[in-house]
């Protein structure tokens, strides 16, 4: 059996859901674990998809469109990102227009709070007017959930993150403030998958609520429920997540991230 | 060349033995390794024998710092700025340094012969001039008739310095050295030397070198020691990076008028600063350094 790390398992599960000819949008992210889930893991998944079943999959990172994934920078400071060989660097405002027009197929998102309907909060913890913790704002998270054809959520599983109702709807999932996604008439596809360290989830549960699609090896329904702040739908006999093949692990370790920069944390 | 050959300027200067035959790159206001000259003076180098073409500022400073026993040169002058290079001229007038004069082309040819690994070169220059009267025939030159055309030529021995000190703009970690703007005799001087110490403004990624390979004057195998030090040609210019510091050049030449004022200059700008960055602070600091930055298109 192929040996793999949890990050590699997550990356493989993300990669398998990427389709040929799609364009994925990755933010520029922060540091540490947040960098891995928001930037590193999506880059690895995208490159893995390119090298396996989706040779024409491409990404944009910030305003860099279709960078050379054979030459991923070793450091993600501005100067390394701006000199990364790439097909195009466009103005941020032009780039956002394309996002709104529906030119982003897969939006990779993460966040400190996600609820059972896939609403995501990256803005405040607590009451908006008197927040317990003020976070960074909204960034382009609302755009990911409103305009990307499919939004992929990647985050670690714990009850602080997976809450019954987010404290602030930064990005709209399948139902927000008592109205369904259909009623809001948002053009994008919304959150379709959640990839965590415990499994892969979608929102095809009753009333568009989060349900387990697969659980990672060794993960039980109880473990998932314990780390989820709302009753999570786990179908009986839920299958095991896709396991990495030897080829996929070989690609990640020798070609994609040989110095373990993208999946470090 | 490996990364391990990147040295500090102090380490690189320490590797220049007293009594060495040294050649220094640069010309006019461009690319003279001034920080290295200052460091050599700080380290009290003695009896250096300079093989020069026209690196007036570097030579004048080194002579003024008391490091030089003999100078072989084509010409030293401060050109448009301030005329004669006083420290050098006074040292010759007072018999403190030995001097051997050649024409520019003769010196360039001697370096070219050295660069090609030949023992001598043949020139037309200096025929009939007094220059030859001051050189011992048979030892420093030989007259001969060309075996092909029969015309008279002067044979001069190849110049083979122990060390070439080369100021350049940039190199990669391997030591591929890029020189921009007037390169004069730098290539020949370096190739003629047994050992090359290069001082660069910055180390750039290999891809930058590869994107502009024609700027590589000396491939890495010619470069033995690399020193990375920004603004290390100051008060000279580094084309594409910064201009010469006219204000400081006047300070320099005014200081070289009397022994007292020259001692004051050395104390203030060479001995007092503990390193190159303190020197930069001394000549005007960040404000001055920012003023000297080159226009991105003009290069100066």
């Amino acid at each position, binding site marked *: 059996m192929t040996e793999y790390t949890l990050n590699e398992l997550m990356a493989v599960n993300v990669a398998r859901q990427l389709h040929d000819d799609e364009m994925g949008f990755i933010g*520029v992210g*922060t*540091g540490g674990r947040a960098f891995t889930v928001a930037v590193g893991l999506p880059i690895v998944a995208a490159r893995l998809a390119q090298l396996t079943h989706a040779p024409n999959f491409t990404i944009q990172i910030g*305003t*860099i469109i279709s960078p050379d994934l054979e030459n991923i920078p070793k450091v*993600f*400071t*501005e*100067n390394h*990102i*701006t000199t990364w060989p790439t097909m195009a*660097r*466009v*103005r*941020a*405002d032009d780039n*956002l227009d394309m996002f709104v027009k529906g030119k982003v197929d897969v939006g990779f998102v993460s966040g400190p709070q996600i609820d059972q309907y896939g609403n995501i909060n990256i803005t405040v913890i607590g009451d*908006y*007017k*008197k*927040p317990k*913790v*003020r*976070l*960074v*704002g*909204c*960034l382009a998270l*609302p*755009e990911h959930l*409103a305009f990307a054809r499919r939004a992929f959520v990647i985050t670690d599983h714990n009850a602080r993150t997976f809450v019954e109702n987010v404290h602030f*709807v*930064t*990005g*709209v999932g399948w139902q*927000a403030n008592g*109205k369904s*996604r259909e009623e*809001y*008439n*948002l*053009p994008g596809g919304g959150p379709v998958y959640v990839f965590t360290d415990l499994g892969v989830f979608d929102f095809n549960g009753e009333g568009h609520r989060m349900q387990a699609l697969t659980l990672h090896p060794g993960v039980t329904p109880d473990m998932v429920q314990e780390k989820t702040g709302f009753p999570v739908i786990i179908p009986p006999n839920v299958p095991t997540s896709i396991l990495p093949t030897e080829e996929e692990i070989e690609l990640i370790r020798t070609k994609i991230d040989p110095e373990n920069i993208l999946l470090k944390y | 060349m490996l990364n391990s050959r990147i040295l500090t300027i102090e380490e690189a200067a320490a590797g220049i033995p007293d009594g060495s035959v040294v050649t220094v790159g640069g010309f006019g206001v461009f690319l003279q390794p001034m920080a290295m000259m200052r460091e050599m003076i700080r380290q009290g180098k003695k009896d250096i024998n300079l093989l020069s073409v026209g690196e007036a500022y570097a030579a004048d400073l080194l002579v003024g710092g008391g490091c030089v026993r003999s100078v072989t040169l084509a010409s030293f002058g401060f050109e448009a700025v301030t005329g004669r290079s006083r420290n050098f001229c006074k040292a010759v007038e007072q018999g403190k340094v030995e001097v051997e004069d050649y024409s520019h082309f003769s010196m360039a040819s001697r370096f070219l012969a050295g660069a090609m690994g030949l023992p001598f070169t043949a020139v037309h220059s200096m025929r009939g001039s007094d220059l030859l009267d001051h050189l011992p025939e048979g030892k420093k030159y030989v007259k001969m008739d060309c075996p092909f055309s029969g015309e008279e030529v002067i044979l001069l021995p190849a110049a083979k310095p122990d060390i070439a000190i080369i100021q350049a703009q*940039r190199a990669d970690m391997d030591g591929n050295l890029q020189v921009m703007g007037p390169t004069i005799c730098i290539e020949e001087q370096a190739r003629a030397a047994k050992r090359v110490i290069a001082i660069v403004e*910055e180390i750039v990624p290999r891809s*930058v070198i590869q994107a502009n390979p024609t700027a590589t004057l000396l491939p890495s195998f010619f470069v033995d020691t690399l020193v990375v030090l*920004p*603004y290390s040609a100051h008060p000279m210019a580094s084309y*594409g990076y910064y201009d010469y510091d006219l204000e400081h050049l006047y300070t320099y030449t005014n200081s070289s008028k009397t022994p007292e004022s020259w001692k004051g200059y050395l104390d203030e700008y060479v001995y007092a600063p503990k390193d190159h*960055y303190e020197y*930069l*602070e001394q000549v005007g*600091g*960040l404000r001055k*350094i*920012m003023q000297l*930055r080159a*226009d*991105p*298109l*003009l290069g100066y």
Partner: protein
Amino acid sequence: MRNKVISATEAVKAIKSGSTLTIGGNTIRRHPLGLVREIIRQEIKDLTIYVWVAGIDVDLLVGAGCVRRVEAAYVGMGPLGFAPNVRRAVQEGRIEYEDFSETSMLARLRAAGMGLPYLPTKVLLGTGMAQYATHAKPVTCPFTGEQLYAVSAAKADVAILHGYYGDVHGNIQWPMVRNTDDIDPVIAKSADHVIFSVEQLIDPKTVMSNPTMTYIPHNWVNAVVEMPYGAHPGTCDGIYDPDSRHLEEYMEAAKSDDTFKAYLDKYVFGTKDDFEYLEQAAGLAHLLSLRVSH
């Protein structure tokens, strides 16, 4: 085309207490921090800040007590995480804050640049932004009947930005490497009065020989100030990297009001101009070590 070069002290006098201000750059990149420090020195107060993806610029101003209200898509320190002063000020209710997303804040700044009172957007539908924003109102499209939100123009009295190269007339140029992870042209267009600090003044002839490198033309610009390392301790990518040594000190100082006051006393109030600040905060040798390859 007149000569628009003035000192930072003079330039900042155009910013009045109680006025609205917009700022170029993003996160810890290419903000006009030299001008920001001068705003703090001149003790300009009660500013309302319109920004897109902001960072240390707003954190400095908030930490120095210059700000009454922030309207933004993001204020954070990029890879270093949250903006500590902003976070504390919001949590303690000392400043007002209105959240927008990247495209909705962009729409507000664009509307200002286009001379329009508002632009419509879909991105607020269903979100907390729509719930709390005072500058967003639901509207129905008169053509399709779709539900949208109108977001009002964020028209600032003054814009401050930091550019790479500029000439005396205010033509601002990219260096050789062109990247655009900010919306500086939108910011510059949005305000009544535009002040640019630039890394280096260049000859107008250099500008003319390479006009496609001009991303802000002189007729948008009112004042130009040459401020080398004017984005310090952030990055001016292509010219220098962020000063992580000083940023660490900043993040540590910004942990409390008292320590941040000491930071400001030492580096901003304790220095008469940005050259003094740079000598204090970094020093020549360290600044030169931050330069990136040509």
